[in-house]
């Protein structure tokens, strides 16, 4: 790392291509870690949250407890959650961050999936029943496809907030781009490093949001036809 060149520069610029060029490896690695953590967290959260939402949809009395529990998890500050997990899982392992991220993403996906499922019109459900669909057949062919807009909304919200949350992992050095942000602050308040991390972080969130929005549109062609 050509640390000297920065110190020679009298100013502390908000952005510097020199910094980006000299540290492209570090930046790419941080970006990769960030994207991986986000993807893993959202996928795991979705695999847990969608079945939970279906459970709440099938067994109404479970709706209250499931939503309340994930609501309480959501209220617990991210730093506190990390503090509960890290002593047991390891203070330098990305797994600690991943568990916290999954717990946060859960609520957003459960709530939106459930809202999507509850919006399936009663007549449609009756018609499916009349056509002889069983419980699982109806779920896979009728309920879940119709709930897709809700599920996609949940996934998008979860993804965008997870991208921002990953940075908290910087506390234990596993924060992806957060490591750049905090590293820049600790490294003599080096602005270019902080801003590069921030810009990439926001850009990653926007790109992933756009990808999911497009995927959602492609998955629900009937919604587009109805709108036009």
């Amino acid at each position: 790392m050509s640390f000297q060149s920065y110190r020679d520069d009298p100013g502390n610029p908000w952005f510097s291509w020199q910094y980006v060029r000299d540290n492209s490896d570090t930046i790419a690695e941080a970006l990769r870690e960030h994207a991986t953590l986000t993807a893993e967290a959202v996928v795991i959260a979705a695999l847990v949250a969608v079945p939970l939402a279906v459970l709440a949809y099938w067994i109404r009395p479970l709706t209250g407890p499931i939503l309340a529990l994930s609501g309480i998890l959501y209220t617990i500050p991210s730093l506190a959650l990390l503090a509960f997990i890290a002593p047991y899982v390891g203070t330098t392992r990305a797994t600690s961050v991943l568990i916290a991220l999954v717990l946060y993403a859960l609520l957003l996906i459960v709530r939106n999936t459930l809202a999507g499922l509850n919006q399936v019109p009663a007549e449609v459900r009756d018609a499916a029943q009349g056509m002889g669909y069983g419980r699982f057949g109806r779920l896979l062919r009728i309920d879940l496809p119709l709930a897709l807009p809700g599920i996609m909304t949940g996934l998008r919200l979860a993804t965008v907030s997870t991208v921002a949350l990953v940075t908290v992992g910087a506390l234990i050095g596993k924060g992806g781009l957060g490591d750049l942000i905090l590293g820049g602050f600790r490294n003599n308040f080096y602005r270019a490093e902080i801003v590069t991390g921030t810009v990439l972080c926001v850009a990653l969130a926007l790109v992933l949001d756009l990808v999911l929005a497009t995927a959602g549109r492609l998955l629900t062609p009937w919604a587009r036809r109805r709108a036009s």
Partner: protein
Amino acid sequence: MIAEDPIQQAVTWLNDPLNWTNPGGVLDRLGEHLWISAAAVALGCLVAWPLGLWLGHLGRGGGVVVMISNVTLAIPTIALLTILPLTFLGFGQRPVIVALAVFAVPPLLANAYTGVREVDPEARDAARGMGLSGLQVLRRVELPLAVPYLAAGFRTAAVQVVATAALASFVNGGGLGQIISAGFGLGIATGGGQILAGGLLVALLALLVEVALAGVERVVTPRPLRRSHGRAARRAASATGGA
């Protein structure tokens, strides 16, 4: 297990009175945490409420309100916490308060806007018919009817700020998060208990604020409006949650 159980350590840590009363102990940090949070929420209200009420009154800017909450959702808290001290705000608590206020704005703004928009158009027409001016309609009709929404937004924002204020410790900004960060600095063998104890304190504070403000929200909501409107307001705010 060779090392002492972290929970045991945490209990020991919490039971040491010096950890509470020392300079930089729990009581000091709690004071800082509450002061930073209160100032941030107050600043957020000062900006978001007039703007939200006014936009709601005009019936314009709904897109802007949604956009603001979407954009702030994507900005990492620690980015603002590290960038603001390097601007004219300088180091210390001031940049922390401003950073937290930025994240308090979306729920406050969205609920103020929705609260005014949800006012029965007939009530507004009646007020107009009685000869009230635009500003009078806002102050005497729309504002009182929007109070349940304002309270819901306040609760969401305050809980979020109290939770996020823990991150101020990343930039040495004080607050209860400082206890957790210091614990991580000590390493897991000696600091494990302190990390857990700090986490417990932060989580308890957030849940306490949530419960207390839920009570306030109930009290300021007129009885006929309680169930359906309260829930609608929470839904309006839900899109902007996150710590």
